[in-house]
């Protein structure tokens, strides 16, 4: 039972991170290699909120807003000028990720940080006791995932974003404001990464490079999923599940590379990955 809950929690958090990456990839046609840095920013928002003595719950809105605002500035001043040169744009996001990591080191030091537990204690579920916070993280990730699906499927902004993903040239000649859609998408994607960072803080240690492993994992998931959110959810569940199993039964270090290795194998066997799901 603990194992199942662990798998679900890991998959749900992976999904929150990877949906942002996938949406940015779909709309802007670039992989945002700074995405991991936004996860770190989110986590340090939680640390900062703790140091300021605010309620730890405030970390969620703070991280979303900080992530989205910094994302908006990044899109406007770094990605947009390079839009005609996608490779340079991707390199620029990679460099930005490194800069963000250094800035955080400057501000908070290299050491691992800890935050106050949000929800201490355990709950009994079908006979096993399980951390209440992990249950909350699972629920929160599912709520965020559902909220995001609603945004994409149920709102005009989501429809416009999907139109740009499917056929940007057509969206442009129909008069959609493709520039604004790219901007808002980048902001929301970065905000989601920030949220995921806060969700993670009580579960893992917070250090300036914590985002990197998650970036690599979610990048591979996006490659496997193609442009489909359903495929992404499935990939998170399967590969995230495999990661938990390997970490639990073999070694946590192997677990860390499970997603990347499995994704590479899947892409080798079926270049389209799960995109037809």
């Amino acid at each position: 039972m603990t194992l199942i809950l662990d798998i679900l929690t890991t998959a749900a958090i992976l999904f929150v991170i990877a949906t942002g990456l996938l949406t940015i990839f779909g709309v802007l046609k670039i992989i945002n290699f700074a995405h991991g840095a936004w996860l770190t920013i989110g986590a340090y928002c939680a640390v900062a909120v703790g140091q300021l003595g605010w309620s730890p719950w405030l970390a969620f809105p703070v991280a979303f807003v900080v992530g989205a605002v910094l994302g908006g500035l990044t899109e406007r001043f770094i990605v947009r000028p390079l839009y005609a040169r996608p490779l340079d744009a991707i390199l620029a996001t990679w460099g930005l990720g490194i800069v963000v990591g250094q800035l955080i080191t400057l501000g908070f030091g290299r050491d691992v940080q800890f935050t106050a537990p949000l929800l201490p204690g355990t709950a009994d579920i079908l006979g096993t006791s399980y951390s209440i916070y992990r249950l909350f993280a699972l629920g929160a990730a599912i709520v965020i995932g559902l909220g995001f699906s609603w945004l994409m499927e149920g709102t005009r902004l989501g429809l416009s974003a999907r139109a740009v993903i499917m056929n940007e040239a057509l969206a442009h000649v129909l008069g959609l404001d493709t520039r604004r859609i790219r901007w808002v998408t980048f902001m929301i994607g970065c905000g989601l990464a920030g949220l995921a960072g806060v969700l993670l803080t009580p579960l893992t240690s917070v250090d300036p490079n914590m985002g990197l492993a998650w970036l690599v994992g979610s990048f591979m998931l996006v490659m496997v999923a193609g442009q489909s959110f359903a495929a992404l959810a499935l990939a998170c569940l399967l590969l995230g599940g495999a990661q938990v199993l390997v970490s639990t039964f073999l070694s946590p270090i192997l677990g860390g590379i499970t997603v990347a290795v499995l994704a590479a194998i899947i892409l080798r066997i079926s270049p389209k990955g799960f995109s037809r799901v």
Partner: protein
Amino acid sequence: MAEALQDATVKLSLDGVTSGYGAIDVLRGVSLDIREGEIFALMGKNGMGKTTLLKTILGAIRASAGRIRYEGAEITGAEPRALIAAGIGYAPQDQPLFQDLSIRDNLRLALPGDAHLPSALERVYGHFPFLADRLAQKAGTLSGGEQKMLIIARALMTEPRLLLIDEISEGLQPTVIARIAEALREERRSRGTTILLVEQNLDFALGIADRWAVLKLGTIDDAGPAGADAHSRILRHLQI
């Protein structure tokens, strides 16, 4: 004075427009006047630059020389978004629909917001009633003819004052062509819409157009009114 009066009746004018892709010029100094309320057929063989011309008018491709005026104001270099807001409608030729979106969402994307969606939908159902019963169907699963009607319907959603239509009759059987011709005639009759029709189907084009021009290697090669000799004159240009 006389010139000013004449200007007032010109809906769209191109003056020495040159444009293309990268370093290659496809249009080489195209000059053309489309009058208020007329249906104008632009003919020409494959690859002569007809689509490039429409995309240049709409601002999807930038003119490297020349001027484009719409309703008396210069629009050279304007963005599609601004021109659509100013009353231009476009029915594109290549990949014209979001295949994986429903009919309703395809139509919805023509409008900048959902406030006027119900009334705009009602309007286009008037031309193509089948759309009303199939709103949830994905555009990609419609038949070829139904897709063409959806493309026209979408272009009509914004009640454009100038319609740019790119080879809508391509691959269609006569009954569907007739329905589209009727919709365009009705649109002009009721709202005075000016239509620039890019076509290769002579019978369809001359059946509804007032004037025509032939585009050849990026310039206007011949032009005239849709009179008795139009058919044979255009045919001469379209033959290889």
